[in-house]
């Protein structure tokens, strides 16, 4: 029977907490203080872009919360890693130990355990309080909106609708514009799959969910150009769903809105289909259409159908709109877009097509046999 002789609980004790415990604690405290000072007073722009000059009133609140967690989380991390490494070295078995040498046989220390339960709990309660304050500001803290803009997610671009503007603005071709200093409400939804509207410098994001409208409220504080990204996976070209946001003075914003209105009015003019040239159309096709369509039979889809036989396909005598494939009807699809069972074709604003562009494209497509 290989049992050892019963002994009393091992009463080997260290004097104090172990060799070098307090110096190590001092070093870890010092490092934690350096970490805290860095996050409180240093520049953290490299990790939180625009932290030194908040872009919106909410960004600084969120950064404050981030700094709080970085200070205390950093300290906890330093102490855990530091003590693990220190204990492992200080209490390592030595070759001089007898093979069955055991460590200090303690099972618990209720007071210590109480402390390491209560202190993190208190820290988390403080963090909860701070988080709720910031959360309340995000949800309910912005003044009545001076501008409400709709953001609609599509595969793979955002559509923005402004009050008083008859046509939409599309992230593929032009940036979103917002006036500085005016409380903004963004109403966010989607027509196809789930997207997410995110501007890293604003620190806020909301999912664009079909059948659901969410809102984001904030006030831009400074002008500049920022990236807009979709941060929820939305399909094959998710990583290309990118755009810009221009925050500009109110006067410049109004000027931009006026010019958009004028462009929209100009685009209303008649399209001179006869003036289109197939060669120019072909170049334009490679640029604007080839991401979704190829010059191939109807069945060979990329996103939309192949367009080789758009005018002479016996299997598809009509266009997807159900109309005969005349140049006028093709131009209609290019202007207005189309949504059907096979998917959505964006309209002319989304694709950035002028009247001449449409004429050239129609000329090219009609020339395909």
């Amino acid at each position, binding site marked *: 029977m290989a*049992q*050892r002789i019963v002994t009393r609980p*091992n009463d080997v004790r260290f004097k104090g*907490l172990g060799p070098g415990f307090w110096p190590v604690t001092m070093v870890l405290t010092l490092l934690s203080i350096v970490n805290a000072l860095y996050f409180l007073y240093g520049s953290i722009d490299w*990790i*939180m872009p625009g932290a030194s000059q908040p872009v919106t009133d909410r960004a600084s609140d969120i950064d404050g919360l*981030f700094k709080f*967690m970085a200070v205390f*989380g950093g300290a*906890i*991390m330093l102490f*855990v*890693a530091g003590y*693990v490494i220190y*204990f*492992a*070295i200080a*209490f*390592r*078995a*030595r*070759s001089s*130990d007898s093979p*069955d040498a*055991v*460590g*200090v046989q*303690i*099972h*618990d220390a209720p007071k*210590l*355990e109480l402390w390491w339960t209560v202190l*993190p709990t208190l820290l*988390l309660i403080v*963090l*909860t309080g701070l*988080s709720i304050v*910031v*959360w309340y500001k*995000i949800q309910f803290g912005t003044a009545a909106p001076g501008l409400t803009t709709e953001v609609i997610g599509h595969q793979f671009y955002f559509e923005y609708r402004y009050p008083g503007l008859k046509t939409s603005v599309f992230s593929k071709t032009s940036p979103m514009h917002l006036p500085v200093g005016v409380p903004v409400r963004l109403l966010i939804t989607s027509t*196809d*799959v*789930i997207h*997410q509207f*995110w501007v890293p410098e604003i*620190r806020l994001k*909301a999912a664009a*969910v*079909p*059948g*659901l409208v*969410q809102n984001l409220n904030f006030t831009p504080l400074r002008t500049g150009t920022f*990236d807009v*990204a979709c*941060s929820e*996976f939305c399909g*094959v*070209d*998710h*990583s290309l769903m990118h755009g810009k946001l221009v925050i500009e003075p109110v006067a410049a914003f109004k000027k931009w809105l006026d010019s958009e209105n004028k462009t929209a009015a100009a685009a209303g003019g008649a399209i001179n289909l006869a003036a289109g040239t197939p060669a120019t159309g072909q170049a334009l096709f490679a640029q604007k259409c080839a991401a979704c369509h190829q010059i191939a039979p109807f069945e060979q889809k990329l996103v939309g159908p192949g367009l080789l036989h758009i005018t002479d396909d016996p299997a598809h005598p009509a266009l997807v709109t159900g109309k005969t494939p005349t140049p006028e009807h093709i131009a209609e699809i290019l202007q207005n877009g189309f949504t059907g069972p096979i998917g959505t074709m964006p309209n002319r604003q989304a694709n950035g097509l002028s009247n001449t562009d449409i004429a050239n494209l129609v000329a090219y497509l009609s020339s395909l046999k």
Partner: protein
Amino acid sequence: MHAGTSTTHDAHDVHDHIHPPPEGFVRKYVFSLDHKVIGFQYFFTGLLIMFIAGSFAELVRLQLTDPKGAIMSHQAYNTMFTMHGTAMVWLVLIPLVTGALGNFVMPLQIGARDVAFPWLNMASFWILPLAALILFSSLLFGGPHAGWTEYPPISLADGTAGALWCAAIFTIGISSTMTGLNFMVTIMKMRAPGMTWTRMPLFVWATFATALMNMIATVALSAAVGALFLEHVFNVPFYDAARGGSAVLYEHMFWFYSHPAVYIFIIPAFGVVSEVIPTFSRKPIFGYKMIAFSSMAIAILAFTVWAHHMFPSGLAPWLQLPFMILTYAIGIPTGIKIFSWMATLWGGRIHFTTSMLYALGFLITFTFGGITGVFLASVPVDLHAHGTYFVVGHFHYVVAGGAVMGFLAAIPYWYPKATGRMLSERLGQLGFWLFFIGLNGTFLPMHWLGLEGMPRRYASYVDFAKAVPDAVFWNQFETAFSFLMMASIGLLAFNVIWSLRHGKVAGINPWGARTLEWTISSPPPYYNFKKVPEVYGRPYDFDKPLPYRNTDNELDAFPEYGKTVMPTPQPVGAGV
């Protein structure tokens, strides 16, 4: 008989119930009912799929060495990260930590001859290759490419591949539920006489908590993917907003399972660390009850926090608060565990075996993942960090730095028991350093890339690289380091196979460990325990005799018992 310790079990009686071992290759190794063989089957299947899923991850990393996408089309990239996530979660982590470790170790630790339902156990295992076959066959149809979450409506574009994905997940869910049920009953009903709840080894506590979650949570996932399957195949609009469904519904049901799922693979790792640290510190585990109960607390709280994955996804604003607070609350039991393991190290006689190095590494990387988890739990910070590489970094610190490190600590620890041979310490320790350095090099830069504006699941990042030029360097840096992890797993596979023949002979108890599996021969006989042992004490008192009776007849056959073959203490890394 010792009066008062066991009145219901007569050792004589039980002795007569030993079944003869099965004969023939198929009964012995293929359709085996033996929990140890089934554990091996899980282990080798899981390790094989880990290679496949790991290769997918390497392809993903290679693609990102160039902002335009280096090696494949967007579609192929999307398929790769989807398959990587899906296979790693359902076909690697859950089978390895519950199937392989739970099956092999848990019955031995409670002094049982097998699990409660051996046939169910065999069925649970054989569902795994079936599910793997269904999942990988989806690659023939273009593969699913909507991420491992497969949120509708985007996942509906996956067509046949998406339907196969649903079928695979549904199938593997059946296996998880059955394993959960099996382990719960085994732990509740089949513990050796005298093994009260507070005398159970902590790995058994962890397996119990895991089994509970497996049993309760998996059905929600099955319902979610079942409905998604119906929408794929029969066009039933569960999640189609235009026809009265709700896309957010899927997210709720998915995360009701998938948040506990994270704990399903991390809690067994907690259990492993709770075995490894006391053994190699030669100290009782500090705060046994607190560790055991905190596992249960985490298992229960795990069911109340799912919507923290959905803060920006269309949750009513007021609902964000309870989910945030409950998520913070999970930090408390987790912190108690970390501090208890640190206190176990204090005053120990620490032996730097491969297992112990992984356990120490686990303490550091898992704590880091836990702290970034608190960042994400805060609604305002999550509104910035959600859906970015910060999440990817956090998640991999918890899963690779937590669950996988725990698993890698378990392999060298129980391999001698399972095979009778020791793994090579030299290769093991080299593997540890490769894995630890590779892990930090791969996943640490993801945190700042994410906060700077890099969304996850990006096949290319041209615009982001324009805004943050350093991003290219950091992505290449990550890719380089990720190959160290791959090399480490390759070393492990080599070590596992090489040591089967060439490893040092292990003996009964090479580590001087004190749980019941170390009182029987290595590898254990078919019936595990000739006589059912009786337990009369706690498992981790290193200065006391083993608290078991009825084990002597086994031990007599092994005169070397009691002498550990623990490697001579060396400085860290000296074995490399």
